[in-house]
């Protein structure tokens, strides 16, 4: 018989910290939103909110994939470079080769999936540590993107292609809804599906998971494939948004931004802890900061440095509240 113990409604300090710890991402987001609304003029204006949502859509897509990789205790340092490669491939397929839009999308996503699969196989079966494998593959991918583009940028892409992300729905570009759809889908996958449960178990306790029949090798490879696919999708949406396909898109800075968002969103570097909802809030949080920096006229370069401080803060706070052994 389970002993039913009544929890007192008066929250003890310990319980409060525990509550905050589990929902760190929400508290950070709420805190930032409130401060921004109060301190920065025009922040809460409708147009500005729209800008924030538009700017969050693409990193959000990539962040979902990175979150899953982080949940296994790994990292994907090639993510930003996959974005660039996906960008130039989509430009070539859409404009130079004039392929139908569905085929372009499929091809780009497939390319991302294959690259991610390679990352996963190298990490799992060649036993190369993830940070080295993806560091090395990142440079390889960057070089490939440069070769494929032959140094040029492809502009003025076909309207049908651009429509995927630029169609106006309820005042927001369709890219935002694509991101929302992806988020919803993966939220269900991670929080409700068998795969998600096995992923979390693998991240927390790989040995116990393996002995419980969880297919750890398959999961490890799969998350990298997913990360690659979503990175490619992000590259696709990016290309549509700026109407230019170029190999320099994304890059190391984008990878870093995505990792920051994931960690601010509560993902633990040691594995197991992470959620789609948290990561989306993490993306929104850092985009709020970026937005405020723009509105206040502060240099963008300062924002890059600030991002680093944010991630450190998030790690330190995460260490204190997560407290994983």
């Amino acid at each position, binding site marked *: 018989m389970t002993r039913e113990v009544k929890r007192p409604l008066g929250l003890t300090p310990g319980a409060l910290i525990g509550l905050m710890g589990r929902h760190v991402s929400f508290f950070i987001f709420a805190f930032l939103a409130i401060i921004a609304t109060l301190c920065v003029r025009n922040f809460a204006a409708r147009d500005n909110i729209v800008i924030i949502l538009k700017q969050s859509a693409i990193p959000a897509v990539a962040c979902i994939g990175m979150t899953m990789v982080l949940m296994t205790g790994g990292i994907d340092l090639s993510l930003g470079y996959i974005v660039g490669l996906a960008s130039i491939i989509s430009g070539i397929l859409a404009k130079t080769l004039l392929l139908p839009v569905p085929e372009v999308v499929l091809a780009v996503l497939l390319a991302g999936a294959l690259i991610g699969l390679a990352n996963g196989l190298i990490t799992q079966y060649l036993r190369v540590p993830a940070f080295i494998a993806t560091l090395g593959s990142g440079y390889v991918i960057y070089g490939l993107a440069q070769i494929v583009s032959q140094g040029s940028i492809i502009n003025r892409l076909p309207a049908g292609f651009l429509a995927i992300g630029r169609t106006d729905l309820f005042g927001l570009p369709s890219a935002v809804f694509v991101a929302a759809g992806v988020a919803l889908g993966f939220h269900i996958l991670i929080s409700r599906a*068998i795969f998600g449960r096995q992923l979390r*178990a693998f991240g927390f306790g790989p040995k116990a998971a393996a*002995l419980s029949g969880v*297919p750890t090798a398959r999961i490890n490879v799969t998350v990298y494939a997913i990360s690659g696919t979503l990175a490619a999708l992000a590259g696709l949406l990016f290309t549509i948004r700026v109407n230019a396909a170029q190999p320099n898109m994304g890059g190391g800075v984008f990878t870093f931004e995505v990792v920051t968002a994931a960690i601010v969103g509560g993902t633990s570097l040691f594995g197991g802890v992470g959620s789609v909802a948290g990561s989306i809030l993490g993306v929104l949080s850092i985009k709020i900061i970026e937005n405020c920096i723009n509105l206040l006229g502060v240099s963008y370069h300062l924002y890059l440095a600030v991002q680093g401080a944010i991630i450190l803060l998030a790690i330190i706070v995460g260490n204190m509240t997560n407290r994983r052994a």
Partner: protein
Amino acid sequence: MNDTLIAMRGITKFIYGGDGRPIRNTDVKILDQVDFDLAAGEVHVLVGENGAGKSTLMKILGGIIPPDAGELRIAGQRAELQNARDAREKGIAFIHQELNLCPNLDVAHNMFLGREPRRRGVKDAAAMYAKSSALLQALSCDLDPRTQVARLSTAQQQIVEIAKAMSFQSRVVIMDEPTASLTKREIDVLFGLIRRMRADGMGIIYISHRFEEFLEVGDRLSVLRDGRSVGGMRMSEFDPGTVIHMMAGHAIDEMYPRTHRVQEERVLEVKGLRLTPRTPPIDLAVNRGEVVGLGGLVGSGRTELAKSIFGVRAFAGGEVRYLGRKTTAWSPGRLIAAGMAYLSEDRKTEGLVLGMNIRENTSLASLASVATLGLISRPRELAQAAGLIDQLSIVAQSAEQPVATLSGGNQQKCVLGKWLSTSPRLLILDEPTRGIDVGAKAQIHKLIDQIAGTGVAILMISSELPELIGMSDRIYIMRAGAVVAELPAGPGLTQEKVVAYSCLGET
């Protein structure tokens, strides 16, 4: 040659509860008023089964853990050891089973790690090599101190550790199962070293269960059982039967339930399985509704056998047949789906996912059964967890409680619950009641009996003799990677017999 180097009196160590505090008001302790002496120039053999308290006693002497009560005197002086370095500075050296060296450094750099000699402000490598050579020569070892430790055999690494200990002017050397991975020749060399050290007036504590070695190298022995000293003898009076009798007399304070009935159908059959290319083939079988015990000392290969059956360890020959099919290369996932379950001995890293709660842990091996179209149904999962909490009497606030906060007994019940949810036909249990309070132990025994009663075949590894003998219909005993005996339950199955087979390989 008769100075007392070490005198331990009334050493007591309590079992610690999940909250980190000692449990004082119970008869069950890790060590209970143990006395132990060591004289200069003697080799004192310490004998006892798994869990008897030998390593705890030596850890206390080695300064690694403090005693909860009792007194330690070194050369007549009272001493309270702060840590291992403190013990070493007071002349006590501990040669562990897992050797404590940096594999990537050479011998000399290992020996002088932390006290590298200096000359004119710079590390004096020449002096290190010279001193190391001298120390090794003193042990009649001509190893080149420039050799990288990773390239040394276990025996050579051991000699390096001994030489290192000697360089601290140790008077007392504790050796924990030193011959476990040595060849006969290497053992002879080691014994020569031990005799030399003894002749120099050092005192050596030699932990072992290898009876054949006691006579060769020991001067006297003491036996621990269930945390108490039960006696000793001078080596001149050594009689294996008496020692076994002392080791084996565990009190039996539980009535082990036996309501299940062994059936005809064979569930598991192991044929000619070799754990390594050098160990003999193993044959083993378990029937429906049968509880088969697997006994033997730590290191005899029981867990390795279980893991080989469960597909997580490669083995060197032979086959496993489960429900009539050859399952030799099957993955754990496939075996679980076919009804095999393995409750591993290390529940914290291999049994439970500590970051998750009861509900998530108990469903982990049977997710498909609480899911529809790949999506887990929370109500079904909760119902399953609640049912298990009820059935196994798990004490918890709810199914959402993190397993890390449960007591050892309740944690083990969670793991058991996880496996019961897979509707197993074969349940392999590896030390199912280790580190669990008495009440929970009895509950688990009852559960095991009930599970067997439903027709599940059970293979149970246990180091607790009363449990092993009380619960099993049949027992296999392993020693050094081989099965040395198969004993049916009955009046002839005594603790002494089991210990004799475990230690000697024969009676």
